[in-house]
């Protein structure tokens, strides 16, 4: 797992049922090209995030395929419908096999 990876997500704490809310996500992630070598001449494995998924109570909100042309610290902003109280789950998939996860609960007000 790459070091210094920190997902940050901004989700409103409450929403009315059926509301559309805006979610912002950013994951601190140092890209690794997979071409560089370390001091001993070994290739450092490539570490670039290739997929981002946001789910709400098991239902998919958005599924993004990332190519290396996405900037370092991938940032996404998108809208989601909140039909009921529950939990947003955010998952990032890395080329080196790591999976970064975070989740946010939301209440109905």
């Amino acid at each position, binding site marked *: 797992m790459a070091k210094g990876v920190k997902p940050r997500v901004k989700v409103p704490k409450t929403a009315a049922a059926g509301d559309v809310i805006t979610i912002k996500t950013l994951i601190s992630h140092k890209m690794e090209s997979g071409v560089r070598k370390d001091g001993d001449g070994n290739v450092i494995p490539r570490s670039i995030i290739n997929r981002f998924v946001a789910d709400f109570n098991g239902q*998919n*909100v958005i599924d993004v395929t990332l190519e290396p*042309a*996405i900037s370092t610290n*991938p940032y996404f902003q*998108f809208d989601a419908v909140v039909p009921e109280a529950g939990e947003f789950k955010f998952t990032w998939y890395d080329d080196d096999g790591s999976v970064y996860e975070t989740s946010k609960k939301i209440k109905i007000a």
Partner: protein
Amino acid sequence: MDFTRRNILALGSGAFAVATFAGLPAYASKTDDAIAAFTGGAGVTDGGVVMTAPEIAENGNTVPVAVSAPGAVSIMVLATGNPTPAVATFNFGPLAGARSGSTRIRLAKTQDVIAIAKMEDGTFRRAGATVKVTIGGCGG
């Protein structure tokens, strides 16, 4: 044949023009390939997609780009002037509030950024924007 100074200049500029044009389609065809892979060869019509990108990006490493297409199933973003044109594909699930997304991308040089949207009825729409890049985002 006599090579006058004028002839040689004409030849030289002709060869230069050929070289420049031969260099360009390499990127263009990669973009076309990427579009064909996404659409499966179907026609793409203009309109129906809104793409928001800055006119001038000072730093090619992080160029904010937003796409939105009401009624889209997925939206693909392509940077035509990058060594690899593919940037990202947004696939919308049942709980997506709006068929839109925004992110930050890398651009190697001044170029067109294209968004291709796959609609619910199976048609494809496109929109593009030219972004001037002051400092490229691919090293160098």
